[in-house]
């Protein structure tokens, strides 16, 4: 239908559409290829190079992958990161559910305002909120001085900060809106009459939850879970600010290889399993029918 826009002869029409399309896409596609796809390609090629300090040796080798598999630190860090990502995802589901359900099914007035309040943290700087947890959880921090002030504690506790729990709490907090929004979207679409029918037919709230709500939430849970999982997998800020030496995550180790450790090929090789893991998740959740991410 749109081809009727151009009132010329058929071949001329087709040609002018191609000209218009080329005019629209040349610069954006050129930008993406030059500044994103080629860089990713170069990064992946780095994984097959090696370092002969201070130079990079461009002969292809599998040395980096052997290092990753033989030095037991790397699989451990990778496993720790995956466990952290899974834990953060589960915690976010548990926290997001009541809020999303309440917003979708109970709130009648001020709904736009409340939704805005959920969306705003999504756009407010995530690394500043991670830093806020550092001031909250530190030995001389706000939580400790608060607990001492109330008399619950007599001496500050030091295990809050520089632990995997600090990373866990902070990442659960910063990615929470990414779970709430898709969950809200799917819950909002469930008609109230469906829930009433279920309870009229004698189902208790748990049975309604398990047989009606949960299956209908699946696309939102998948979309939200994918977001929280991949964001945790790649994070570098939380382990840097909140983690102790034993709590390193893959993002931090990769960043170190491109910084202080100055071993770019090893850093590139360390990214490969992360990319594989995320691609598999993307593919799987697409197959399972995740909804698109919700923006403002």
């Amino acid at each position: 239908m749109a081809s009727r826009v151009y009132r010329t002869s058929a071949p001329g029409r087709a040609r002018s559409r191609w000209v218009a399309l080329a005019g629209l896409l040349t610069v954006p596609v050129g930008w993406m290829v030059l500044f994103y796809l080629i860089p990713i390609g170069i990064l992946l090629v780095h994984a097959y190079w090696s370092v002969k300090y201070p130079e990079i040796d461009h002969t292809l080798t599998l040395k980096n992958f052997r290092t990753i598999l033989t030095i037991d630190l790397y699989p451990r860090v990778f496993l720790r990161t995956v466990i952290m990502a899974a834990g953060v995802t589960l915690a976010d589901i548990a926290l997001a559910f009541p809020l999303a359900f309440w917003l979708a099914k109970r709130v009648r007035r001020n709904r736009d305002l409340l939704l805005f309040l959920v969306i705003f943290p999504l756009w407010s700087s995530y690394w500043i909120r991670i830093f806020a947890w550092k001031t909250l959880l530190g030995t001389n921090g706000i939580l400790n001085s608060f607990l001492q002030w109330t008399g619950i504690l007599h001496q500050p506790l030091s295990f809050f900060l520089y632990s995997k729990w600090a990373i866990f709490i902070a990442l659960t907090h910063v990615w929470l809106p990414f779970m709430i929004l898709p969950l809200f979207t799917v819950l909002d679409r469930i008609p109230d009459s469906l829930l009433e029918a279920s309870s009229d037919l004698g189902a208790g709230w748990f049975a309604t939850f398990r047989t009606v709500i949960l299956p209908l939430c699946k696309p939102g849970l998948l979309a939200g879970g994918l977001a929280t999982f991949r964001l945790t997998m790649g994070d570098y800020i939380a382990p840097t600010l909140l983690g102790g030496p034993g709590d390193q995550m893959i993002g931090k180790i990769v960043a170190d290889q491109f910084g202080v450790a100055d071993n770019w090929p090893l850093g590139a090789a360390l990214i490969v399993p992360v990319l594989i893991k995320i691609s598999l998740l993307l593919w799987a959740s697409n197959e399972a029918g995740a909804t698109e991410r919700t923006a403002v």
Partner: protein
Amino acid sequence: MSAIPAARSRRFSLGSVSLTVAAITVFIFLYIPLAIIVLYSFSGEVVNVWPIGSYTTRWYGEMWNDSQIREGILLSFRIGLIAASIAIVLGTLTAIAVDRFDFPGKSLLRFCVVLPITLPGIVTGVAMLSFFSIMGMQLSNRTIIIGHVTFCITLILNNVVARLSQIPRSLDEASADLGATPWRTFWRVTFPPILPAILSGGILAFTLSFDEIVVTLFLKGRDATLPLVIWARLRRGFSPEINAAATMIIAVSFVAVLLANRVSKWAGSS
């Protein structure tokens, strides 16, 4: 209609009360860190402790007299504006192509544009770093801008495509039937209704760029954006003006998100 009394009776049940309590608790959890930063930026104490003995605006004064922070703010604004403007042009062009044309590789194109925000920021950062290094390009503010544009394009694209899909194509056709050139049709028929979507996408792109740190850390040259200044001081240990600078970043994004929200509402009503 019988649903109304059922809903009303449910409102006072135990389950309903605990749901509301749980929801409000989660809301508090969502806002505690932001509240802490803002509150302590006015604290008279030199360290962050409870209770706060006195309140002051001294840290804002110190922040303003700190030339490093002042230059950081200006640089972040400049980079955000330039990156958002380039992303607006590239994203809008892509959106029109995606919505109004059928061509092979369309879904692949959309997939590639979303990749920079789907993959961790660190991947974008180190990939571009290795690219610039192989190309022999000096790291500078220009490389930061290139990095920011790349993950901002998708914001504009999504916003504009969502709006374009609501505008019937028959309007374009009517314009052409009445003898308007495609160029004129674009500016007079297609562009006005998508303008709010372009603007709100652009504001959000600015917000992302303004406080971005992961990609910026890898692509920075000699100058420091505001996040880089704060980051460097954080790693050295805490100093109270950090809370003031962080509050400023939060305030800028709050105003921007509010503005984007208003602008897209304005699109919905027209």
